[in-house]
């Protein structure tokens, strides 16, 4: 009932965990049986290890939070040695999220992982990183660059390639179409929304980097609008992300056009939230007599 088939992949349920909110899946094994999830997306991996940004890195906002972690991660070499083998023990889809600062970074990182004998199902590409060769402009704001990056990665892997889009663009449809033109198998959206907080007592921004990424239930309406726009413009499968904390939220994303969903910030509140949503979805399907959740994809009814 909750099984979703996409290409030659079968997802036991449509609920995955979002990059950066579930580590590498082994940290929370005390609290969560990851095998019950539809899949996990790893924390972003970069070519070289990254320390991350100076503190403060997080701040609470109404129904959400701002973060500016700075892609702190072990780097691809250590990732391949220490993290990749652990996925063999997991009976769920694992997608490795890759970030970079030049197309060559992304390609080199992916190629390094490709040479390993791993059980991963594919990659999710974070295009919300500044491109050092283009004056720091993010890859994901430029359709041409997005297509170029996608194609470069497509040439190097037969595994599933998911492009994770940023909402901080003028027209997300253009970026989604560019990703598909470049060979993306799926689109996931949205990444965090650019935001800022201020402490009036100190007159300082709440994050060291001034601007950060807003996530949590606060961004759900923004995410729904973007998913629906993407659904209207491309035909590849879509993963909805943004403030999902219940089966009701997940169903809203499916009605807007999503095939699968990722749960992000809610994992910090309840690491087992993904599992809870899965059991709620099952009850919903039984109650509404829904044979497959694919039947409600994009079934939004305009007034």
């Amino acid at each position: 009932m909750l099984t979703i088939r996409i290409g030659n992949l079968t997802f036991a349920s449509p609920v995955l965990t979002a990059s950066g909110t579930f580590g590498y899946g082994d940290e929370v094994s005390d609290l969560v049986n990851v095998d019950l999830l539809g899949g996990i997306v790893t924390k972003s991996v970069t070519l070289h290890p990254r320390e991350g940004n100076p503190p403060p890195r997080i701040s609470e906002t109404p129904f959400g939070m701002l973060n500016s972690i700075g892609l702190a991660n072990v780097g691809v070499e250590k990732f391949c040695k220490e993290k990749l083998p652990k996925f063999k023990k997991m009976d769920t889809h694992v997608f490795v999220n890759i970030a970079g600062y030049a197309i060559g970074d992304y390609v080199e990182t992916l190629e390094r992982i490709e040479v390993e004998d791993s059980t991963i199902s594919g990659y999710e590409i974070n295009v919300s990183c500044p491109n050092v060769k283009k004056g720091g402009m993010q890859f994901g704001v430029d359709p041409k660059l997005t297509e170029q990056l996608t194609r470069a990665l497509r040439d190097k892997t037969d595994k599933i390639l998911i492009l994770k889009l940023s909402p901080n663009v003028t027209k997300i449809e253009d970026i989604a179409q560019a990703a598909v033109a470049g060979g993306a198998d799926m689109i996931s959206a949205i990444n965090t929304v650019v935001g800022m907080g201020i402490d009036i007592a100190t007159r300082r921004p709440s994050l060291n980097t001034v601007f950060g990424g807003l996530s949590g239930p606060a961004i759900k309406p923004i995410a729904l609008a973007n998913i629906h726009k993407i659904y209207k413009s491309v035909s590849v499968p879509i993963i909805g992300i943004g403030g999902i904390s219940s089966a009701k939220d997940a169903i809203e994303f499916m009605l807007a056009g999503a095939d699968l969903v990722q749960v992000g910030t809610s994992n910090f509140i309840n690491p087992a939230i993904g599992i809870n949503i899965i059991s709620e979805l099952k009850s919903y399907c039984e109650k509404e007599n829904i044979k497959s959740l694919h039947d409600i994809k994009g079934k939004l009814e305009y007034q």
Partner: protein
Amino acid sequence: MHNELATIESNEQISSIYQQMVLSAPLIAKDCHPGQFINILPDPKWTHVMRRPMSIASQSNGKISIIYKVVGEGTSILNNLKPGDSLDIIGPLGNYWTDFDTDYPVLLAGGVGIAPILYLHDHLLIKKIPHHLIMGTRTKDEHFFKEKTNASIVLTTDDGSYGIRGSVINALDSIVSGKNSSVIFFACGPSPMLNAVNRFATDKNINCYLALETLMACGFGICQGCAIEITNNSAISQTYRNQYALVCADGPIFDGKDIPLC
């Protein structure tokens, strides 16, 4: 690590500004150690999406307690909870104090930093390990410990209205110099106090373990939001980081030598 729906046993004011909440949380109580913390969801409706990390102040018979001061929205919500209400908590989290057996322990607490220090104090009493406890507040009415003072429990106040005038540092000299054997510091409190304790320890070549506090989201190393700057990477469990440590996963207790003095 457990995610427990704890039942509130009591939630009472214990001095002019401090509250103590006792929680029935058998799983966490069974596994916790002095210095560890729990991460509290203040509102089950998720109006506040970041849990509040708080040190465990006591542990016995399936119960734990926290000590807090109402400072913002999260602690206001906690303050309004009644006995019988439930509270979603994750714990026990972080590392904990060890090494009480060789050097003479001197426990130092400033303000609400008393919480983990009280737990350590209880632990040492049970293990019959002699030690000193120095607790500092701003004024007399903030102290909730007055009836317990004795030769090895010293209280200080910033304004001199009770005990020794000044900070916990003002009580340290006589205690440290009166000891023949070497001492070790275990401290928790506001940053200026921890910095002063760390400086005192560095000057006198005394081992010093500080429990630090930061904002956190997850509390177990995933979000990486609770980074602090460090001077020495021996504090870090994952060796790719040299400059920053995570208070939740690498701490909350750090060797004073790894924390920059300011």
